[in-house]
């Protein structure tokens, strides 16, 4: 136990936690996205899928696990960012850098919190609010939400944030976990980008589809 706590207190250990939770969340996103795609098959298909999920007795457990992943991911992000901000308090007067960092890599600390805010909205929107309703048509809720300009903006914007976050995060997680043989560096990077594109297209297609066909 002692060595585990030491690990979690170390810079590398904390990055491991970020990488492991991050990759798990990526996996969740892929499943989530696959489920969402049922909306293309019509409202009924979507609701059927939702019923199937909700009738699973293990769902609360899965939700708790998911919540745990999010909380840990966010908590360690705060810890790491906090440390990083104090490692250079006298900033450069001219800071152009060497050109290796990207928009995605330098905005992780912005896209992260923005996604957290979105997540709260999203959970309120589709998870908590429906608990308060006696009867609901989930598919219709989705359609209503995304055909509304504000809803459309929030959701499509959030998906762009996911894309930006993931663009850096995927290969970064592999690097952190130590899977970075020079021969696989490009493969990992490209796989990450492919997954990112898939997620953005999969999630992002829906608001556009609904907004512009409604």
């Amino acid at each position, binding site marked *: 136990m002692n060595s585990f706590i030491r690990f979690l207190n170390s810079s590398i250990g904390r990055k491991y936690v970020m990488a492991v939770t991050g990759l798990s969340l990526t996996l969740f996103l892929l499943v989530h996205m696959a489920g969402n795609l049922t909306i293309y098959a019509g409202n009924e298909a979507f609701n059927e899928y939702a019923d199937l999920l909700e009738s699973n007795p293990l769902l609360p457990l899965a939700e708790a696990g998911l919540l745990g992943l999010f909380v840990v991911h966010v908590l360690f992000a705060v810890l790491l960012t906090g440390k990083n901000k104090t490692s250079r308090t006298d900033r450069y007067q001219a800071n152009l850098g060497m050109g290796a960092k990207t928009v995605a890599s330098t905005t992780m600390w912005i896209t992260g919190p923005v996604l957290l805010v979105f997540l709260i909205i999203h959970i309120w929107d589709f998870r908590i609010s429906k608990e308060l309703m006696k009867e609901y048509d989930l598919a219709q809720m989705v359609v209503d939400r995304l055909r509304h300009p504000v809803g459309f903006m929030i959701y499509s914007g959030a998906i762009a944030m996911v894309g930006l976050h993931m663009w850096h995060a995927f290969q970064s997680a592999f690097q*952190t*976990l*130590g899977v970075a043989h020079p021969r696989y560096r490009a493969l990992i990077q490209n796989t990450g980008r492919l997954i990112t594109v898939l997620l953005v297209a999969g999630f992002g297609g829906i608001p556009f589809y609904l907004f512009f066909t409604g």
Partner: protein
Amino acid sequence: MIQKKNHGDLRIVLEVWRQNGPGAPGAFEEHEVMANEHMSFLELLDVLNEQLVESGKEPFVFEHDCREGICGSCAMTIDGKPHGPRDRTTACQLHMREYRNGDRVRVEPWRANAFPVVKDLMTDRSAFDRIQQAGGYVSINTGSAPDAHAIPVNKENADMAFDAAACIGCGACVAACPNASAMLFTSAKLSQYTLLPQGQPERDQRALAMVDQMDAEGFGNCTNHYECEAACPKGISVTNIARMNREYARATLRRRN
């Protein structure tokens, strides 16, 4: 990047950071210097310092020694780039033909809390030494070594170990890192020994000790921007950081306490 081919002198406006010590307020001082395209950047600073001495002012302090890119002494951020705009080049090997007549150039020290400013462009990089002292060696007493040919070493590993060992300890990686992280430096030494059979007996202990010391020195965490690799005058690869991450996790799993 501008390649000036014709012979000639250049007028350069230098803005150099002046700071009297750690925590003291600092500011840029502007000076005009006539350069020649064949000068190295440090020779430009020599000329500036000579001008200052002759006019009774205090010269700027900057670290330098071998002036051939191997000792790792010189350390300055030139227009926001550690060691200046040229790839794989230390400031002493940067030549003025990279610049145009009339250019304005800003020179700052490395900025990281683990590298406090000693004076002007000189910073205290002893944190690097302490990381090495924590475990950057093979514990073998002089005179007790077996014959050099007793253990053959796979050539590919030997070459990779060399690539990692080429680090000159200048600190450009820390200076370039948005988080002032020392992971490229630490991982380079760790990789050298991880890749060689001689480093195996102390492998776990070394990884734990060096990383713990690195953390204790107040460097930031790596967030995988790879600015360090781009700034490294010796082209040390971030693959070494991945290896260090792996080694640290492995050592944690294997440790007994």
